[in-house]
């Protein structure tokens, strides 16, 4: 008999507590060992997504899918887990190495999934896509290709396109009678005029390092063409020895010495809003950033985003081999399927939803540009149709779309690569030292 306490609740005997404790330990232990393995429960398909603001599109997609006939047919429901953005890759890696691996997971394509592919943890989606018109014709071919490894598809595009764009402050440009540059010489000329007016030409969130990377990505493309990085991406470290890399590093060095990024750029971060604020407040005239700069500014400085934010393509470098229409950045993000999934049918049925018009509409409403082939006719309903169309055409017409270097190469190369880039930007290494350090990677 359990004695009753005055408040009506039960008190627990010591034996009961010990018993309960042991049971909990046992069951947790067992769960960790077995039943939560993705092969165990085939009716629930877990999906990991990057847990930022844009995840609301995936939340809606999951609700829609779980209520659909396709879900009933595949006898599966999706359970979405929004993994906090910081260190998403590290958390995914830990989960994928454990019995609690997700069935479907968000990634950046390229190098970000290479280790999983090599460990045979990914479902090869090549034939699925080929045999399914919805998937095959649903996406822009270049974007679908960017989610592939060695010609095999492992990813289905699931977010907006993220090309890197040169943004500018229209007010500052108008006040100093400047036009967006199309060549490097014009850009240098603008820099000179801006500095004379005591305005930093470019905002740069150097503390995060990846905004520094964007400069090298574009310069190497414009000077040497997309082939230079293609070679590196495919594992040939001698590609770093291409004269275009050295030239790009020297050009960066000149910009820094010239004060193009201001003095304190290494202490400025993009993530905490430092660089966008410098830009929106007119302290810096331009900002090289992914297309998400628009929604960032819309969130922090809506008036600036609506009235004074302009954009243009990264200029052409005189004598360079790269086309001005070439784009760098992230084509988009992808869903990949874990080879150990217990319900591949449900997973693939869910992925097909990403090619649907309903999904594309959600993306557009969120300010993103879908990578679906039907996207163009939806752009008018974007919060800023002008910017949406610019971005869509930029990607659609690009002869080459180079995936961000840090996502394209293996993590054990990208980490030291980013360190070397930072050393170049803070003046800890010369362009020649930069090149030789990169050639030494792997």
């Amino acid at each position, binding site marked *: 008999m359990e004695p009753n306490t005055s408040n009506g609740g039960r008190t627990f005997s010591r034996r009961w507590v010990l018993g309960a404790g042991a049971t909990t330990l046992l069951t947790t232990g067992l769960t960790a060992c077995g039943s939560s393995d993705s092969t165990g429960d085939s009716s629930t398909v877990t999906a990991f997504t990057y847990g930022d603001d844009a995840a609301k599109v995936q939340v809606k997609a999951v609700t829609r899918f779980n209520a659909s006939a396709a879900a009933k047919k595949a006898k599966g429901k999706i359970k979405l887990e929004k993994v906090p953005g910081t260190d998403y890759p590290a958390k995914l890696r830990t989960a994928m190495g454990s019995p609690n691996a997700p069935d479907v997971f968000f990634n950046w394509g390229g190098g970000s999934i290479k*280790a999983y592919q090599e460990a045979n943890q990914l479902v090869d989606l090549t034939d699925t896509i080929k045999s399914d018109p919805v998937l095959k014709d649903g996406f822009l071919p270049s974007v679908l290709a960017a989610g592939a490894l060695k010609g095999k598809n492992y990813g289905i595009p699931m977010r907006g396109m993220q090309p890197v764009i040169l943004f500018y402050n229209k007010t500052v440009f108008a006040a100093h009678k400047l036009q967006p540059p199309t060549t490097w010489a014009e850009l240098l000329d603008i820099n000179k005029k801006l500095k004379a007016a005591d305005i930093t030409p470019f905002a740069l969130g150097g*503390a995060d390092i990846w905004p520094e990377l964007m400069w090298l990505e574009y310069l190497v493309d414009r000077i040497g063409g997309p082939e230079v990085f293609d070679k590196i991406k495919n594992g040939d470290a001698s590609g770093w020895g291409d004269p275009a890399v050295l030239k790009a590093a020297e050009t960066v060095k000149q910009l820094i010495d010239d004060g193009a990024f201001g003095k*304190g750029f290494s*202490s400025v971060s993009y993530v905490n809003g430092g660089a966008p604020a410098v830009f929106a407040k007119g302290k810096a005239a331009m900002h090289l950033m992914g297309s998400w700069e628009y929604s960032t500014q819309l969130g922090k400085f809506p008036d600036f985003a609506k009235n004074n934010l302009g954009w243009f393509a990264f200029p052409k470098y005189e004598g360079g081999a790269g086309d001005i229409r070439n784009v760098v950045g992230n084509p988009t993000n992808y869903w990949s399927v874990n080879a150990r999934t217990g319900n591949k049918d449900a997973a693939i049925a869910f992925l097909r939803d990403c090619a649907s018009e309903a999904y594309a509409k959600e993306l557009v409403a969120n300010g993103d540009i879908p990578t679906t082939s039907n996207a163009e006719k939806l752009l008018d309903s974007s919060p800023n149709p002008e910017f949406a169309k610019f971005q869509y055409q930029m990607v659609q017409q690009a002869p080459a779309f180079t995936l961000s270097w840090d996502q394209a190469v293996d993590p054990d190369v990208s980490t030291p690569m980013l360190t070397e880039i*930072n050393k170049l930007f803070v003046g800890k290494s010369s362009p020649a030292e930069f090149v030789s350090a990169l050639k030494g990677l792997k």
Partner: protein
Amino acid sequence: MPARRGWSRSSPRPYGGAAPHAVWAVPGVLFFVFFAVAPMVLAVYLSFTTWNGLGDPKPVGLANWDKLLRDDRLTQSLTVTVLLTVTSWAFQTVVSLLLGVWAAGRQRNRAILSAIFFVPFLLSSTAIALLFYALLDPNFGVIHQDTLGSTSGAFLAIVFVGGWQFIPFHTLIYQGGARQIPEVLYQAAAIDGAGRYRQFFSITLPQLRNTATTSSVLMIVGSLTYFETVLILTQGGPGTDTAILPYLMYEAGFKSYDFGYASAIATFLVVIATALSLVLVRLTGFGAMRSTREGM
């Protein structure tokens, strides 16, 4: 008197009659084995393998150790770690010693101020680092300079932020130590005509010898495993100038997914920290615990 296991007849018993039974130590020992010894053994094992977190670790013999000994970044990292430890120790010891002795006195408002000084220690390291990161922003912070972008600036910022967080704790230790000093010593010194400074250097400081050792060992071992502040404030930058050993280990493990190499760094760190603690304890006579009251 019946002989008991664990206690020899001749040794005095610290708690008078009954000595604690060995079983009492079981929960503590189990925890230590599960959460300290086992992971350490695992790290040593992993340091002889290559493992990217997926599949099974593959043995590679001494490859990681060979790489570690040839890694230029290890030498640099070790230098930064030692510099950081020494500077932090000097900064924190001086400030917390002075604050602690002051807080042991009987001034007005002393209790209130001491309580306020203790607040930073109650905040999480991450929150503190984020706070200072915002304060150090060159455009919108309090100092309009490229603090974190310069080598000395980043280094001093880490020392300062670490001090800001841990000085309250060490102040508390010194306060406790200072309160234990018998009042008669000061009274006698005053009769002999010693002033405040003479009293501080001839009585307070020598009497705080054991306190200083305790505090220093905690500071030095703590500095060796200092991590969150570096991760948030500088990410080892500018370049690699503040990449201390624990950060190097994190980078190898959770950015490059080279868990074998990360384990080698971790093991190396354990060896250094253990050796350093032993040396400190030996050099300072902490192990012998000689009384500061000799001759009294």
